[in-house]
């Protein structure tokens, strides 16, 4: 039986690093960064919301990448890595929707609006929930891997079109990085934003690696006769 010692060491280091970074990130975002001019303390959820969005795309990106390579190389390990990506993606997709809704209730006075980015994120959630449901309904591991890889590729190519179609409506989601609605961030806020992003991202990567290792071990386990 192959051991995945190196993988566990890497994941462990990532997990430890994020544990060390979290107190610093929370201090930065909850204490040191000033409240935002119009939204006050409610804006602080952004320091969690943004990393969740990035992790959603990291997970789905991993799923798409490994699915593509799976159809080419056909090794079951790649399928396991793709599932890990999709699972972590759905987890953070749910969290990005949840944190966004909490913030929206405060900033816009409503839990949900059919803003382009919100709509697109919600559609993404449906697509990858569908991915897991398809997997759950197929018994043969080879068929399951092949079919779900095809679905992942289709879903990934559909994402830009989803974003394009929902953007044709005018949105109210703030674009924090560019454009006229850019949030004016003080240096302390930028520092809080980046440290949170780093802490959460490393934490998410650790989860992703742990989940992949779990899948790989399951793969090696001999089927019960």
């Amino acid at each position, binding site marked *: 039986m192959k051991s995945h010692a190196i993988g566990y060491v890497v994941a462990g280091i990532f997990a430890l690093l994020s544990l060390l970074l979290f107190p610093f990130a929370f201090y930065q975002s909850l204490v040191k960064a000033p409240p935002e001019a119009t939204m006050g303390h409610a804006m602080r959820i952004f320091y969690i919301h943004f990393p969740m969005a990035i992790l959603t795309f990291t997970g789905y990106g991993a799923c798409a990448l490994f699915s593509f390579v799976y159809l080419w190389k056909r090794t079951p390990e790649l399928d396991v890595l793709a599932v890990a990506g999709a699972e972590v993606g759905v987890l953070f997709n749910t969290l990005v929707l949840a944190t966004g809704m909490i913030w929206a209730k405060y900033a816009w006075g409503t839990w949900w609006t059919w803003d382009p980015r919100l709509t697109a994120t919600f559609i993404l959630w*449906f697509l990858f929930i569908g991915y897991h449901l398809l997997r759950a309904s197929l018994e043969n591991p080879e068929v399951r891997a092949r*079919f779900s890889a095809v679905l992942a590729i289709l879903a990934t190519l559909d994402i830009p079109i989803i974003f394009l179609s929902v953007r044709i409506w005018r949105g109210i989601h703030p674009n924090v990085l560019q454009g006229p609605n850019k949030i004016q961030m003080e240096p302390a806020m930028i520092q809080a934003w980046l440290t949170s992003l780093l802490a959460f991202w490393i934490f998410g990567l650790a989860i992703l690696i742990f989940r992949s290792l779990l899948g790989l071990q399951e793969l090696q386990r001999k089927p019960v006769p």
Partner: protein
Amino acid sequence: MFRILRILLIKDLLMEARGKEILVASIVFALLFLFLLYFALPITQSPIESTNGAFWVVVFFASTLAFSRSFAKERDTGSLETLLLAPVDRSLIFISKALSNLIFVAFVITIALPAFAIFYNFSFLPVLLPFLGIVTVTTVGLVTAGTFMGTLTMQSRAREMLLLLLLFPLLIPLFMGAVNASATLLKAGSTEEATSTWRWIFFFFDLFLPALMVVLFDFLVEE
């Protein structure tokens, strides 16, 4: 190549014709849905938008009855293996099935559209040709993706349900394009205005995605 496609298409249409109760069921389903939606929508306040929206919901839902059976019958009777043994390009098998599904959906729309005109007082006649154009480009995209997803879910338990869950999120841009383009057309009456913003969506679902699906179909039927 066209001879093979014709033979395959005759086979698919013959299968549809032998199970014509499904076609009847789809049409009745469309009428029933039309009936239900009338009570759910503010028809009196915004007649054109509501009717147009109801029409597209009916078309999308009624068509899925066809898609879930795309290759289900072949698979259940074991004739799929025989079909795949035939020395034909597999993309032709997909294209033929999509064409037969297209004819099926065309039947449903042919019944649904006059029904909407009668029961909802849906006045699409002044812009009949451009409206039918939007219906055609949408149906082609819908049917190709539907046939593909029908193949993807053919081996699953509860395939009808799963098909809906996989197909509709994928088709949301197409649905939005169809609803908005036809609503603009019906209100403004100009084709240019109706198609300018949504043209790219139709290109994607009528050209790019079908081409990709023909390629990916090989991965679904390798045995």
